[in-house]
Each structure stands twice: as structure tokens, then as C-alpha cells.
């Protein structure tokens, strides 16, 4: 596989123009936290890169509001940006299959054909699955998102959200 297939233009573009990348409120004591809120800080131990993802469930309709910040390689930054685009204002049970699909794609060892309809821009990451050392990069934001969403959904009064995201206790850290 060529480098161009790994680093598709859409990845490089997202890495530069990052969707949803903004200062997280969890670090700002003066900002009050929304009622259905979760945040997760993840470190990629291989490289030391890190990301923080914050998720709110909008009170009125339960839809996702996502914020993130971090530093890392183009793949991790682009992946966070794409995730943000896909999840922003979505319902948790709309996002669940995307998350599962992206996970599966990353573990396909270059064999899987991405479902472009489901994954949108995230399909561009299919080349990453051939590079074991980079899979963690692509999944970093998603892992943080999953964790934050679980927290945000813990007390949100709809079973759907709970079921589809495997919500547990609200464990803020």
C-alpha cells in the first residue's frame, strides 16, 4: 500500500482544519457543567499524545454536543475531527453503529471494505488498519468519546441512549 492511501487527502485536511476542536470546559472551574455531561482524557502510551473529549446530552432532545482538544499525529487529530463531525448533534443510537463500524474497520488488518455510507469521512481511515502501531492513533478520540458519552448518558432519562452506549455509573475523574 502506498503512503497516499494511508494519508488520504481528506485525512490531511481534517488534521489541519479540525472540526469541534475547542477548549474543553472541564478544565475551567468557572464554567458550570451542564446536567448530562461527561469528559474523558486519554493518553496513547506509545507516544504520549493525549486527547480530551467532552460530551453533553442536550436536555431537550438528548442529542450529543461534543467538544475536544488534544495533540497528536495527523491520524489521531483527523480521526477526532471526523468523529466530531459525525457525532455532533446526533442521537446516541445513531452513533452507535458508526462507532462499531469504525472499530471493526480498524481491526480488519487491511482486509475490510469500509461501509462509506455508514462511516462517511471515517471510511478514509481504512488504510490505518494495516499499521498496527497506528491503530491506537485512530481510535484514541473514539475511546475517549465512548467513555465521555457513557458518563453523559448515565442519568439521562431515556433507555435508548443507555442501551446503545452501554452506559454505566457516572464516573467523573
Amino acid at each position, binding site marked *: 500500500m502506498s503512503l497516499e492511501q494511508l494519508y488520504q487527502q481528506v485525512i490531511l485536511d481534517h488534521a489541519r482544519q479540525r472540526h469541534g476542536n475547542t477548549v474543553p470546559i472541564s478544565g475551567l472551574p468557572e464554567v458550570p457543567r451542564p446536567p448530562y455531561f461527561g469528559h474523558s482524557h486519554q493518553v496513547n502510551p506509545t507516544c504520549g499524545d493525549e486527547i480530551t473529549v467532552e460530551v453533553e446530552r442536550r436536555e431537550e432532545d438528548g442529542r450529543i454536543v461534543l467538544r475536544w482538544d488534544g495533540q497528536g499525529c495527523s491520524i489521531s487529530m483527523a480521526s477526532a475531527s471526523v468523529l466530531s463531525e459525525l457525532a455532533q448533534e446526533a442521537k446516541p443510537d445513531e452513533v452507535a453503529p458508526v462507532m462499531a463500524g469504525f472499530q471493526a474497520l480498524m481491526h480488519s488488518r487491511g482486509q475490510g471494505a469500509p461501509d462509506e455510507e455508514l462511516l462517511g469521512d471515517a471510511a478514509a481511515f481504512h488504510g490505518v488498519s494495516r499499521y498496527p*502501531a*497506528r491503530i491506537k492513533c485512530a481510535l484514541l478520540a473514539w475511546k475517549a468519546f465512548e467513555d465521555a458519552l457513557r458518563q453523559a448518558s448515565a442519568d439521562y432519562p431515556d433507555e435508548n441512549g443507555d442501551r446503545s452506549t452501554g452506559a454505566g455509573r457516572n464516573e467523573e475523574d
Partner: protein
Amino acid sequence: MFDAAEVERIRNDFPLLGHYQEQEAGGRRLAYLDSGATSQKPLSVLEAEQEFYERRNAAVHRGAHQLAVEATEAFEDARAAVAGFVGAGEREIVWAKNATEALNLVAYGFVNASAGLGGPEAERFRIGPGANLVITEMEHHANLVPWQQVAAHTGAELRVIPVTDAGRLDLERAEALVDSATAVLAFTHASNVLGTVNPARRLVDLARAHDAVTVLDACQSVPHFGVDLPALGVDFAAFSGHKMLGPTGIGVLYGRAELLDALPPFLTGGSMITTVDYQQASFMPAPQRFEAGTQPVAQAVGLAAAARYLAETGMDRIAAWEEHLAGRMLAGLQEIPGVRVIGPEEIGQPGDRLATVAFDVEGVHAHDVGQFLDERGIAVRVGHHCAQPLHRRFGVTATTRASAYLHTTEEEIDVLLGTVAEVRGFFLR
């Protein structure tokens, strides 16, 4: 069990045995009856290491380059293979330099936890003067001295389960010694001197009833019969590569995932931290948290090849063959005047005795016995076999120990017996 032809086939896989056979004038063989100390290596193990160095050698878990990816794969595949060999999960296998380090890792976990390190999850490893640590009278120094050190650090009491004259654990006394203040029950699965195989499940049940952590010294069991560590229910277990056809320089710690993640780190340095500044560090989950610095990578690959060789040969068949040899050795030795076996004199039930037999020759020091056997091409171990207090308990300072393995022949046992029978005649002449 094997037949003679199969043992010959197996012998051909071991370059050292073949080499010796060639060298010796008159075709005399080396009877290597010292596998209990360290085993010889089949060619497939040497080749696996060599192949690694020649094609895939690079730093693991670190580099982004292709070679590093391949090295990492080889390394983690090795972990999976060794984990599978003892029925464990991959995350439950930590590489060490030898079994001794693996046991020290657990012991220092207690020391560090008791000094306040390791955060709240290390609570169950914190002990003090009221606690006790229980070991057995038949422990190798590797499963004795580290617990003395824990006792010295924490003020805990060290208790010892006695061994009967027949060479078995006194289980009644064990039940009296393990109590609600017992933090650790550390015992060997099989004695490297007596050849006794201990009833691990029963000891684990005893420990669990009192919420004690169990630490199994599996150095002499994993090489010789099939061992499923999770099925035994032990919390931690240690074994060595070099005693199971693998390379020197590698050992294994098994730990139940839940405990391993809670144990404070031991060696600290690179590849085991998540973030660090100049004043503090946070640590990765197990197994990485215990694998500081560059690991014995080629040795892990070699050990995996050894585990594969053993599994393909069949642990049950190996165990049956060795039991057959043990019976022959025990019966033969007891017929020789002046020879006393230290340890069970016969196989009680299948699986309760290794083909590792220590004995005393009346009036002749073990080192002289060993020298005599060596002169006849028989390699045995003499001394206290790193179990000094156990020897004292049996009233000797040293014994001669013959230990068989899958490549040992009946003929070798017979040569041993015949030669031992000559010893007293020579020295008491």
C-alpha cells in the same frame, strides 16, 4: 507414554546430546540427569531465536517502522503462546529474567505497597507487624528469602509448614498455620529436591478461606506436566524458561488480571509509564507496568518455541514417561545398600511425584558421589540444591540429585543405578 524409539527421535532434536555422543570416544553417551537444574534445548528453540535476530530484531512497542512492528508482533505472539501453554490470558503473563525475579516482583509489590506506594488499589498488599506469611519447609531459596525480606521490611511473621519424614507437606499443620492474619501463602508446586508434587488446589482453598494471596512456585511443575494455572486458582505463579527447554535469561510471572493491575510496580523505567514529570509518574496497566526497559525479546520468542515443542510432544505423554522413569529410579535406588532416598520413596497416586530423586549415600559425601558419576559420564547435581533448610531438616547438608526429562532413556537410569551401586566400594576402600 513414549517407547524407546520415540525417545531416540526426541534425543535427535537436542544438539547438545548429539554432540556429546559424537565426541565421546567409544560412543559413550552423556547421561544428562540434571534437567532439574537447567534443561537442554531442542534445535527449534535455537532456530527461533536466531531467526528473530536475523530477520526481525528491533525495539518492541516503540518504533513506528516496519521492523519494529514485526518485532513487536513476534514478542506479543510469544506472550500469547506461553499464556496458552498454562491456560492464562495474555494480560496475565509478565516477562521476567528468571523465576527468581518473578517471585521477587510479587514480594517487592508487598514491600512497596506497605511503604505506602501504589495508591488505593494496592490496599490488599499492605501488611504490617500483625500479619503473617506462610511458606513451606520444602521451598527453594527463591521462594523463601524474598519473603524473609518482606518480613524484615514490614514486621510480618514468617511461618513454615513442615514436611513429614516421608517428604510430603503436613497438611494438618498447614491448616493450623494459615489463619485470618495470613497475607500470603507461598508454596512450591513441586519440590526440586524431594520430587513431591503438592496438592495445589487444596492449599489454594485453604488460603482462600482466609483471604490470603497465593504464590505458586511452578518452576518444577510447568516443565514436567500439564498445568492450567487459572484452574488451580492461584493468584500468582512463577516459572523459568531455561528449565522447560527455553533459553536462559527469561522467566515468567503469571498473575490473575485483577491482582496484577493492583500490584504496585517493581522495576521502574522506560515503557512502563503513561506520563511522567520530574517529580512523579503514573504507570501503565499490567503486564507493561512490570516490564521496564528492553525486555528479553529474543528469549521470549525462544521460550514460545519451547512451549510449542512441549505441547506438540504432549505434556501428558511426557509426564507419563517421566513417571515411568521415576518408578524405575526409586525402585532401583532402594535396592542399593547404604542409599537413602530423601523424599517420597514411591509414587503414591499418579502425578504426585516427579522423576527428580535426591539421595544420600552413607559415608560418602554427595560431592564425591557426583564426581564419581561424572567420571562415568553421568551428570547429576550435588549439594543443597538451593534448599539448605530442607536438607537440615533431613539431617544432611547435601544430597545427590538425579532428574530426568523427556529425552531420558531407561538405559540412562540403569547406568545411573549401576554406577551408584559402585560408589561405596570405591570411597570406603
